[in-house]
């Protein structure tokens, strides 16, 4: 795809910075996991460009819904790294007061309506957020990210049908990273592509290079524009790759090949964007280094903050179950 949108420099630098920040955050998370401080973590390394390209078009009052693998969605939507890292460590200062953990990070004030541990479960919720915007008469949009595996859940189809008949301002963004746990997409998905399924619901769909943030930006921009303008939903299949195992403890080479890994890592979204910034002279090497350093520093600060934060009081166990329960 040739990129036709002209993107201003601030946006370009923001996208780069976001991708690097996600990368560093995930590396730090992995260290925390290796140290036994966090469990059940699904790394998003390799997939950074997808939410960054899309979220670049979103306002704080737009909504994002995620999956079990959602750290990158949260960061791209502007969540506070300190609170996120504290949440991963189960601390009371976490986004969710430590009650949710890695699979449930949410921050309604930033429009992050939650990671969700049940595959496919958030897709109808996102349609409902689109419906809500419509009933309330706003131009807010909702974006739901989900995996190639989730594309086989019935919820996707029910939600696409609702979005189709009601013309909802909802983006369906499938992060096709080629695997659901160890199951390859060629095995699990019948049909030429996942994107193609949307056409059965009258929803325009597009296959994007999910390792190219500029392409994600361009395609995401048009989809968000359509949604805001009341033109209805869009389906984006972003072809991407997770560099690590499904959840950290698995060895991906038992179900995929070294060549395949090398191929995708050779198309790394961060590296390609860095090259683009240099080549187009949007940033000097020093400026890029500066961004890299800043990203690392914020993540280190988040790790410190999380470490220094207290665990919730055991009394917290039974609060927040209801708003009121006489």
């Amino acid at each position, binding site marked *: 795809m040739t990129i036709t949108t002209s993107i201003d420099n601030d946006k370009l630098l923001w996208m780069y910075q976001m991708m690097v920040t996600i990368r560093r955050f995930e590396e730090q998370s992995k260290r925390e996991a290796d140290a036994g401080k966090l469990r059940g973590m699904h790394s998003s390394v390799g997939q950074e460009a997808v939410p960054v390209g899309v979220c670049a078009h979103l306002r704080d009052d737009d909504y994002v819904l995620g999956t079990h693998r959602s750290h990158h969605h949260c960061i791209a939507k502007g969540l506070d790294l300190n609170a996120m890292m504290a949440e991963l460590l189960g601390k009371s200062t976490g986004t969710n007061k430590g009650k949710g953990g890695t699979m449930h990070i949410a921050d309604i004030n930033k429009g992050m309506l939650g990671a969700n541990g049940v595959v496919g479960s958030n897709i109808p*919720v996102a*349609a409902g957020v689109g419906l809500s915007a419509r009933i309330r008469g706003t131009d807010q949009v909702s974006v739901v990210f989900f995996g190639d595996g989730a594309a086989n859940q019935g919820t996707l189809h029910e939600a696409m049908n609702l979005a189709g008949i009601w013309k909802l301002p909802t983006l369906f963004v499938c992060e096709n990273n080629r695997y659901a746990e160890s199951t390859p997409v060629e095995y699990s998905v019948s049909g030429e592509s996942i994107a193609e399924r949307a056409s059965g619901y009258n929803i325009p769909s597009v296959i994007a290079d999910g390792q190219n943030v500029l392409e994600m930006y361009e395609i995401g921009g048009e989809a968000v524009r359509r949604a805001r303008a009341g033109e209805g939903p869009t389906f984006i299949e972003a072809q991407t790759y997770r560099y690590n195992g499904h959840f950290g403890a698995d060895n991906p080479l038992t179900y995929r090949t070294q060549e395949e890994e090398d191929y995708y890592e050779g198309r790394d979204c961060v590296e390609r964007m860095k090259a683009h910034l240099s080549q187009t002279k949007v940033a000097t090497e020093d400026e890029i280094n500066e961004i890299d350093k800043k990203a690392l520093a914020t993540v280190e600060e988040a790790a410190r903050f999380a470490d220094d934060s207290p665990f919730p009081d055991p009394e917290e166990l039974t609060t927040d179950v209801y708003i009121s329960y006489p």
Partner: protein
Amino acid sequence: MVTTETETRKLSYIQAVNEALRQEMERDPAVFIMGEDIAGGAGREDQGIIDSWGGPMRLTKGLIKQFGKERVRDTPISEAGFIGAGVGAAATGLRPVVELMYVSFFGVCSDQITNNAAKMHYMFGGKIKLPLTIMTGMGAGLATAAQHSETLYSIFTHFPGLKCAVPSDAYTGKGIMTTSIRDDDPVIIFQNRQLMGLPASTHVPEDPYTLPIGKARITREGSDVTLVGIGFTSYLNNQAADLLAAEGISADVVDLLWTSPLDEEAILDSVQKTRKVVIVDEDYPRCSLATDISALVAEQGFDYLDAPPKRVSPPHTSVPYSQPLEAAYMPTAEKVVEAVREVMA
């Protein structure tokens, strides 16, 4: 609280709930309704067809004409889709009322109820509000067989994060609907189909009113035995109390109205007074509301009891179609009387 009925304004269950929905929609633009055929025919405005069914039980009849099809929304048959959509709408400023036609269909959509609606407030550290009301039809006795006749409030009561209400007549039907819509937690209202079919008999005030969440009512005061019921079984218990009165047995009738929160105090107070309890429930017998209450009384009212708690539940059997089998399946006033005789013996 003893409820006395003044006999001024009688509505049927359906009329009363319809009124609650209309009043709450008038009061608060954030309230909207969606479900299958809740207007019916809403896709054919061009042919002059706007309202048809008004819901399979006619609970929503006429509302689309007043509020339009944005707020009274027919849905395709895709319960996971539109109940999930209700969760999303509730999380972002609206107060959806969503209909799951029969509770027996929970299995196509309960992930949205038990994993999203029930848990989001907790998982997200209390930082989100989910004022979602789900209304659903339930109950046997209408020859709709195994897949359309279940009761099932027990399994939703099981889940922390959900409130569960079971009206027992038109008055409580209206009050509970109003209460649930205004409440900030997810509430499921279980509506019994036989109660919906009864003629108008209870007084229903015209002005909107709420009922206290989690509070039972005593529909009959008595001293010999406590009858605990809910929804349709409260209706049966009132009949049974008449039959018992004729035998000189005075029953205290507790109509729970809510299973979550449960009014433990009302149950225990009554049992303390009567020292005997019969729990009448239409849900399946295992791991049920009935066992929940029996356990409560045994554990916290052990010293009050002159006889073991007694349950009247259907057998551990799916709901049969054939009329004589279904009649044998259901709790009845006669079975309640029989059980009372046993605990009095």
